[in-house]
């Protein structure tokens, strides 16, 4: 690990350090620093800031950026009203890691692409302009949607997928732009020409909280498919929230993990479902729309049929249709 200066923030202003790098749980950043994938000259420890509360109001649930993944998953309101979020968190990492991992850090964790992790290899995300060997190389865990010719990495978070389905907004305190509230689609950017840029956040921007709107109507679930049944990242995951009334789907929110550079949500998939009676044929139509632009790179071709099956299984579970 490269040397760094360590600073402990005692207020938000300290944390908005444009020359420093924020550290919270450290479970991703320390790993990346050990590999010298990240080499921040200054680390700003934000863990003593007052961002550890979950506050409920009439219209939202405000989750402080330092709330740990285990506390969030175990919170009574989250378990009762936002089970898709508890389920997604509990499907991620391990008991030990969830005790350290924070809400803000989880959102900003970086890809698990093997080329990003191997500093002897080119990687446009790590060294802009160096190339992307993943497209013709080891790409089994990589993306099939939202890729660019320069990067096919996936975003690894489970939590963020559930938050995307729940229409969460991220509260950011920026030294330049003031307080902002961004949806996940506004915060995360697609790789395009510069995969090293993953979000619109700038140096010094601090995530202070995540806001969930009122609990959605209907049933919620999170289904994660992975290489082993615990302690493994998603190959494909689906966060689903569906309401059925009088035999018709009235509301649907679907977000996908393991498929794309950010938690993936495509409103046209939901449009296929809303207003219709749930059926196997309808679910296939929704999957057709989701996957119409999907592109595999060899090893990861299997994700396309796997995404279809996982989506259909989730829709069947949420609507009570037997497959």
């Amino acid at each position: 690990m490269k040397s760094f200066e360590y600073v402990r923030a005692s207020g938000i202003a300290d944390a908005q350090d444009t020359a420093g790098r924020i550290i919270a749980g450290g479970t991703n950043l320390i790993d990346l620093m050990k590999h010298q994938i990240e080499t921040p000259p200054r680390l700003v420890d934000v863990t003593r800031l007052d961002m550890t509360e979950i506050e409920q109001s009439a219209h939202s649930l405000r989750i402080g950026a330092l709330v740990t993944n285990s506390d969030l998953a175990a919170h009574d309101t989250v378990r009762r009203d936002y089970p898709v979020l508890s389920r997604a968190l509990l499907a991620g990492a391990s008991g030990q890691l969830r005790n350290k991992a924070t809400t803000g850090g989880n959102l900003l964790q970086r890809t698990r692409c093997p080329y990003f992790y191997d500093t002897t290899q080119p990687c446009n995300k790590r060294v802009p302009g160096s190339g992307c060997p993943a497209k013709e190389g080891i790409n089994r865990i990589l993306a099939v949607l939202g890729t660019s010719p320069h990067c096919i990495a996936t975003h690894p978070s489970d939590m963020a997928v559930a938050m995307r389905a729940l229409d969460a907004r991220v509260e950011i305190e920026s030294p330049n732009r003031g307080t902002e509230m961004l949806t996940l689609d506004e915060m995360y950017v697609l790789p395009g020409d510069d995969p090293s840029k993953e979000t619109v956040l700038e140096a010094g921007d601090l995530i202070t909280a995540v806001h969930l709107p009122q609990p959605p109507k209907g049933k919620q679930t999170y289904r994660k498919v992975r290489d082993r049944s615990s302690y493994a990242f998603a190959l494909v995951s689906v966060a689903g929230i569906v309401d059925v009334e009088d035999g018709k789907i009235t509301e649907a929110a679907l977000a996908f993990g393991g498929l794309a550079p950010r938690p993936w949500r495509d409103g046209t998939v939901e449009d296929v479902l809303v207003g219709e009676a749930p059926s196997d044929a309808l679910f296939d139509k929704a999957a057709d729309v989701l996957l119409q632009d999907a592109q595999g790179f060899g090893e990861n071709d299997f994700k396309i049929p796997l995404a279809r099956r996982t989506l259909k299984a989730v829709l069947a579970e949420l609507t009570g249709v037997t497959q």
Partner: protein
Amino acid sequence: MQITLTVNGAAREVDIDPRTTLLDVMRHHLDLTGSKKGCDHGQCGACTMLVNGRRINGCLSLAVMHDGDEITTIEGLGDPGNLSPLQAAFVRNDGYQCGYCTPGQIMSAKGMYDEFNKGWPSHVSDDLTAEPNFTTAEIKERMSGNLCRCSAYPGICKAIEESAEEEGLTKRKAAE
């Protein structure tokens, strides 16, 4: 940097480079070599210790961030000749072969009992809003952050099941 940690009940002052992990402070600065380094990247659980009562991976924790915290390592549970119930149960049930993962397994189980007592659900809990039952399936899921290269899992599970109450588990079955 100068920091103070309360390690197994005693205040310990150490002067460290900010890069030093909690795991390395224990092993290299305090001569507490019970906590093991398996992967050094959060992938195996051999370094599991309790920080303020919660289980974490010592290898992914910078010690400077834990100034003032209370740390419990395997050395804090029992000594040879005076084993804690869980340590004794690991011996009785062959909960290891090489023993390298064992301190991490035991510290992780300690943390897990407490998480049960607090009613935390897991990935395998059917009902998120109910209190969890202390079943083998629950133990396996909750202990998945501790790998055993010798695959002593049956003995590990048995030891954890057997000594649960002695180690403070308050109830096995959720209230009806």
